[in-house]
């Protein structure tokens, strides 16, 4: 016998079980200012790696004149995305330039000297819904759209995957749980119609009947505008979800909205759900209705060291310094520069690094905001286990990693760890837990990679041995044949001699 209310109560208890943290969000004042357009900088730097997967392959040469929207680099594989020119100009160089990455390494980059805004003719479409879904997915891929929530997974393969995997529910992520960031919030407030059309297009492409939009309850205006924009469409449900970090993780939001948990090691599509970010939905709307490739994005510029924090619409490839300069410059020397949010974003080596597709924010943090106190001993308080959105045991995992036993940490669920940093945020002993997990994940990856390479080397070695043996056998056979022929010829000669 089922008692509906009791079941609901249980569900509620289960869902409100402990996970996540409540950091100081500091979204103001950027969140209450309108998005402004950043003027084009004199030079744009477009790295060939701006997405998850294979690097793009440049199709232009140094000295080429290009128009805005023109293809600069095509997708370098199945999981890859093309890159387009955000403005008209001349290709000045194709070579290494500083990457927006904590390592400070260089990355192959197309340098574009901007001369104007003349654009190529864009392939607009009055009614994208009249086109077949695979044609739309192809156009999304050609426009270079990637997941703008931070993972930068190319959108086109994800859409195709959704179509093949019988996805019934589309979850749209508008939670934006990272502190400081408000680019999705502003986007939903100012361009809700476009976002909703993008959402409908995604649902049309993957054939999902049910659409759930999740917006954290610290964004009431965005929630209201999105509700209004979604009102004409019965299959779109806009939900307000509690503010809690990391609610913006696709998995956590999906579980919250649908009540279904993702089994470890499986993809979202295997349980019939796909998650897309609101920014991606908007980019898809622009790509399909207006034919615009992904060349601009909205970036939150914030942090204690920024004079006037705000959201900017920026051409990809703009150096981060141009954004900070537009926002009134720095009030003091920042101790940490971040691209993305402070919890999961990438530490920037310098403000020369360019804005890429996945850059949701540029943060210049002061010592008071970013300083990490000295590490102490673990006091076994268990706060980290409460914080973990996946109910892992961060303290045990970190202890195993510290003693050099990464496989043990893997058994405890290291592969499921999002490295969201909620555990490290709460830790009263200031143990750099997520740093341990990032390190261990890197080790696991490197071990797998090295294993794969060794297998390859061994196979190649075996193939060589086989080939040498075969060649030897062939040579012997050829020699034997030649000898036999010679013998036969000799015998024939003898015979002839004898007969004559």
């Amino acid at each position: 016998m089922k008692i509906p209310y009791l079941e609901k109560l249980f569900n509620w208890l289960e869902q409100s079980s402990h996970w996540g943290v409540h950091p100081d969000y500091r979204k103001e004042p950027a969140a209450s200012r309108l998005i402004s357009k950043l003027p084009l900088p004199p030079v744009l730097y477009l790295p060939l790696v701006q997405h998850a997967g294979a690097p793009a392959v440049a199709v232009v040469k140094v000295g080429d004149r290009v128009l805005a929207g023109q293809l600069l680099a095509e997708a370098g594989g199945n999981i890859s995305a093309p890159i387009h020119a955000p403005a008209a100009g001349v290709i000045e160089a194709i070579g290494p330039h500083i990457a927006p990455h904590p390592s400070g390494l260089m990355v192959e980059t197309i340098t574009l000297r901007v001369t104007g805004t003349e654009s190529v003719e864009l392939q607009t479409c009055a009614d994208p819904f009249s086109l077949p879904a695979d044609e739309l997915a192809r156009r999304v891929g050609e426009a270079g759209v990637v997941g703008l929530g931070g993972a930068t997974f190319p959108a086109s393969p994800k859409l195709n995957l959704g179509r093949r995997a019988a996805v019934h529910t589309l979850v749209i992520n508008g939670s934006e749980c990272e502190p400081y960031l408000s680019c999705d919030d502003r986007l939903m407030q100012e361009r809700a119609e476009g976002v909703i059309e993008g959402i409908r297009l995604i649902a049309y492409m993957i054939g999902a009947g049910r659409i759930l939009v999740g917006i954290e309850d610290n964004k009431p205006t965005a929630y209201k505008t999105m509700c209004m924009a979604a009102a004409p469409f019965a299959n779109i449900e806009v939900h307000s979800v509690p503010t809690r970090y990391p609610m913006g993780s696709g998995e956590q939001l999906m579980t919250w909205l649908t009540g279904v948990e993702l089994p470890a090691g499986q993809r979202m599509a295997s349980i019939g759900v796909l998650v897309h970010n609101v920014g991606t939905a908007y980019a898809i709307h622009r790509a399909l209705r207006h034919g615009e490739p992904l060349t601009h994005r909205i970036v939150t510029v914030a942090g204690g060291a920024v004079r006037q924090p705000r959201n900017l619409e920026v051409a990809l490839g703009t150096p981060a310094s141009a954004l900070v300069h537009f926002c009134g410059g720095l009030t003091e020397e920042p101790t940490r520069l971040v691209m993305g949010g402070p919890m999961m974003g990438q530490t920037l080596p310098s403000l020369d690094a360019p804005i890429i597709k996945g850059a949701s924010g540029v943060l210049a943090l002061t010592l008071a905001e970013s300083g990490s106190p000295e590490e102490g001993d673990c006091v076994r308080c268990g706060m980290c286990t409460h914080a973990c959105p996946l109910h892992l045991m961060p303290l045990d995992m970190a202890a195993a990693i510290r003693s050099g036993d990464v496989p043990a940490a893997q058994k405890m669920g290291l592969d499921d760890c999002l490295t969201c940093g909620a555990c490290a945020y709460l830790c009263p002993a200031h143990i750099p837990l997520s740093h341990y997990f990032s390190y261990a994940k890197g080790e696991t990856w490197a071990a797998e990679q090295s294993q794969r390479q060794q297998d390859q080397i061994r196979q190649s070695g075996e193939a060589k041995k086989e080939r040498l043996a075969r060649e030897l056998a062939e040579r012997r056979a050829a020699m034997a044949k030649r000898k036999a022929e010679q013998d036969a010829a000799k015998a024939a000669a003898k015979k002839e001699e004898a007969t004559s």
Partner: protein
Amino acid sequence: MLIPVVSIGALGGVLGIGLAFAARHFKVEGNPLVEEVAAMMPNSQCGLCGQASCSVAAEKMVNGEIPLTNCLPGGKALAQRIAEKLGVPLQLDGFEEVTPQVAIVDELICTGCSRCLKACGNDAIIGAAKHIHGVLNDLCSGCGKCVDLCPTMAISMVEVPVTLKSWRWQKPRLEEGVRA
């Protein structure tokens, strides 16, 4: 005359049959673990571990005569897998993973003599006689066998450059006085 011939012959026959029986039924199997570990080794016979061959190294590892981390091309990943196979804890104290190296051919001095080509155990060097040779980084085990063979000294070993893809976080350093 016949007696000694028959008796010695019979003795020989019996002992021969006995030996044949013993050889078949009391055969001492090679340690199967050694074979399994040998199969995991790179088998490029590079000799960087100081052993005669990969299988000798495998045997010594199984017998505990040399550390599991001795195989340089295999690195930590191989050591970990062997430790798992043998069921022994991996001793990583004092083990510093060497940055993997690959051979590189200087195109300006390579004469295309193809000596390195023939010596490379896993076909990592490509090219043909009188053509400049090149190294396929993915197949190079870093054994360095080719370096000494080159008559023009065109081959050198270089560290595999760190890229955005291969870069990874270092282990957090434990501060003084902090216990795990």
